[in-house]
């Protein structure tokens, strides 16, 4: 019996190491995960912050920018392990939700620069979209298209994305689920300038501004 007990202890240790648990104390194997847990990042720059409306099975992350930084929109690519599913929002039919800070609509049905008149249309297309690309990379963007709309203070939840727990993925409680921002840019207040007279010419060029978004720690639990 003694010999058998030694063998079993050794086997448990081997299994624990193989699973990456690293618990050399011979603790029981991790229980299957039932949800997601997220710890917000620190700092006051661009960051993904957990929304209070999150549930264990659907984690909602809000993009928040630096207070007092005026911007006209932002976009980023977020890579997650394949065991995480990115979710859609019913109200937008996209994997990104507008939180109402940016003005996504045409602000005036008749642009004052002499260009084509645009009618008021409830189906008017907006610069709000997203998708999941190969490698489980969520790509989302939200931008004001009308240059007459003022830039907005970025220090508020600007948009939201959803990460969903996949019960079929075989996650164990405590499993680390690293999230990585592979690209992120925002549109600054200065969007360039354009002259109408005497001829239509660009006066000042502008570009999207690269930025760093801090991401918190995500675990299965």
């Amino acid at each position, binding site marked *: 019996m003694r010999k058998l007990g030694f063998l079993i202890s050794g086997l448990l240790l081997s299994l624990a190491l193989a699973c990456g648990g690293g618990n050399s104390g011979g603790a029981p194997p991790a229980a299957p995960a039932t949800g997601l847990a997220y710890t917000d990042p620190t700092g006051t720059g661009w960051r993904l912050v957990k929304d209070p409306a999150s549930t264990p099975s659907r984690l909602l992350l809000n993009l928040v920018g630096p207070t007092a930084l005026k911007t006209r929109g932002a976009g980023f690519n977020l890579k997650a392990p394949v065991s995480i599913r990115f979710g859609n929002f019913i109200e937008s039919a996209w994997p990104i939700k507008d939180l109402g800070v940016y003005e996504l609509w045409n602000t005036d049905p008749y642009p004052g*620069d002499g260009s084509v008149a645009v009618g008021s249309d409830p189906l008017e297309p907006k610069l709000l979209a997203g998708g999941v690309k190969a490698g489980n990379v969520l790509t989302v963007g939200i931008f004001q298209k009308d240059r007459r709309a003022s830039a907005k203070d970025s220090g508020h939840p600007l948009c939201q994305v959803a990460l969903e727990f996949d019960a079929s993925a075989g996650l164990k409680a405590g499993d680390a689920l690293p999230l990585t921002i592979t690209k992120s840019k925002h549109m600054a207040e200065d969007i360039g300038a354009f002259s109408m007279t005497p001829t239509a010419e660009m006066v000042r060029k502008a570009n999207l501004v690269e930025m760093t978004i801090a991401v918190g720690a995500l675990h299965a639990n």
Partner: protein
Amino acid sequence: MHGSLPRLLTALVFALALGPALVAAQPMSPSARAYHLSQQPQRVVLAQDNLMVRRTELGLSEREGFIPVHAFTNSEGVAVVRLDHTFEGHRVLGSQAIAKVPLGGSIRASTSKVMAGVQVEGAPTLSPETASAIALRHLDSKGPLKGAPRVERVVFPAQFLGGIATTVDPETGKVSVDRKLTVHARLSAPYVWAYEVRTHLQNVHDGPKALTYYIDARTGNILRINDALEHQAVTPSTGTGKGYYNGNVSLPTSLMLDSTYALYDPTRGTLPNPDLQNYTPDASGWSATGLQAWYEQNDAQGTNTYQSFLFQGNAGNAWGDGLPFTAYGMEGGANGQTAGVDALYAMAWTWDFYKNVLNLDGMDGKGTSVYAQVGMTGSYFRNNAYWDPYSMALGLGTGTPTGYGSFTEFDVIAHEMTHGVTATTVKFVNSAGYEEAGLNEATSDFFAQMVKAYASGSAGNTGATVPSTGADWRIGAGVGHGTPLRYLDKPSKDQRSADGWYDGLLYMDGHFSAGVLNRALYFLAHGASATPGADDFSPYLPQGMKGIGNDKAARIWFKTVTEKLYSGNMGTVTCLEARDQAIQSALELYGESAGGFGLDSLVSHAVENAFGAVNVGLNYAESSRTQVRFADWRNHDWIQRNHFSDIGYGHKQYLPVGERVNPRITVLNNPNTAVTWTLGGPSLYNGASALKGGVINADGSWTTPYTLGWYAITATSKADPNQFAEGRAFLVNLDTDGDNEQDAVDLGPIAFSWYLTNGLNPAHSMFNAPWVDDADVAAFVDAMKATWWVK
């Protein structure tokens, strides 16, 4: 009134009570026809009164009404009256009722194309003169107009906004976007005041043109442009031939007052030709009334001088030499006359067919005279034939010495003259982008066969029925020196035309999408084989069918296009609607009930099978059929509703360049919804209105090419390979920030250039255009959703 009818007419009333089927088999006597014609004016009034009383039922207000615009009395003695819908006295485009007023019977009116809920705000702020000036500025004529533009104030429904127009290059057969006729307009209201401006050109600089403009009466925007000339497009090939089609024939000519003869038939046509009446009669006795053959005077190099002359001054009344045309600069001589002989001979037969068989007086039902212009040259018209509805005239090309023969073949002429019938009744639109473009051409092809069969009969030019022999079911076999321009029995034998309907048929030029109706009418008249591999075998009707003969088929389709269908040049008639109405025509003509209406019969079953055999609707007693559709997912979104290409391209999809994508498709009526994707599609066989590129991967996805533009893709049902759909994907470049990756971050730069007159960077546009607007926004998000969508 009835009491005073002579005995013969009393008998006719009885015959009508027994039903149209009985009447249809017996030609109407001259006296009965005369009586019915005398009653036509009163019946027109009755039709108008009937519809005015029904306005509330039809959803119309007191500001609306109906005005009769066309009437004829059909072979059953029924007055068929077309009435335009008006709003405050002005025509509502594309909205018309067709009323049928029988002797002593109740009025039946087809009102499916009458638009309810018409409301037009405000009043025109532009004058008709300003609208005319806008149209003329766009027309940009290089030579003089044929006459002053005709301007009419109308109500324009937003659904008829113009879209992408295409044209066929006569030299290459390629289809390309006609930038002159393409309209990018938008409307915020469903109905607006507009001016219809009809322009007409025929001069050495511009050639013949008949463009109708619709100008917004408040903004001056061009809302739509219609090309009224009915062209017959051909594809050049290499061959040799001769330009003499009818052999030795007798011709209806005139002995003129100067004792010479002319190719001028004063016995056919009672109203002057609207074009020729502008000419001043000379001392020869000529007038603008009557069928006549004219020629275009070319120079010795074959360049049209745009001077036209009647074939006349012939001392012996002997015409032509029967040889292929070679006499450029000498068109009025014996060699040039050969084309005039062929033309006038076929014109007379066509005229008589419509008058004697179908009781239609001339192409417009009014007896308006028709003339042909042979010897047409120039890059577009040399290898072509067309019908000009404003001039009521045919233009017939000379062909080329090493290519096509003269376009004066019998069936080509009957085809073009039939455009005169449809142009004054159903008014099919004639450009690719609409299914009815094929219905238009097929109607002309089919009746050309019926005229050919009629002319083969032994009754001279007076018979009232169409023999079931005599049609060869080919168009332009002589023009092509033995290779027909089109086949009706198996249209795909030309390597271009469609044998059956599929979603995407509308992308074809009408001359080739015509294959669907051509084959249906061939099956209806002639029957279909049950032998796989035979030209007249259809996989959609493997059991085959028995034909009902030319005469019944001709009457059913004539009733359908002259009494049932209406487009108003707006492109609203589909193959399925044509099929449904043809069944109704069959029931009315050959139904088995006492009244002839409502009960099906072997003839109506044949119509169902004939259309089912070309994949339009179900066969008789068939319960279900697999369908593959591109259209169902878009559901009238912003792109379909507002984008300039909403006509004909409403179910296109945007996709990114250089990405692995899965185009959207819907399979109906089959639990197995799997499809096989292929690059390209049937429409590419007759031109390059779209590209073909990329790679279909093993998993069925499509790796798109890197070049922007329209691409054709085809999805075929794995469960039923006879069912497929051709769609259009417009590939756009989403990489607006230039980092070599297409992602949602690229939404940003669109904002930099949005609605600037000149964008900051062409890369900001989905179309690499110098401007950016909501079309770019819509294209971007559509492509993204289609490619990286989240379940």
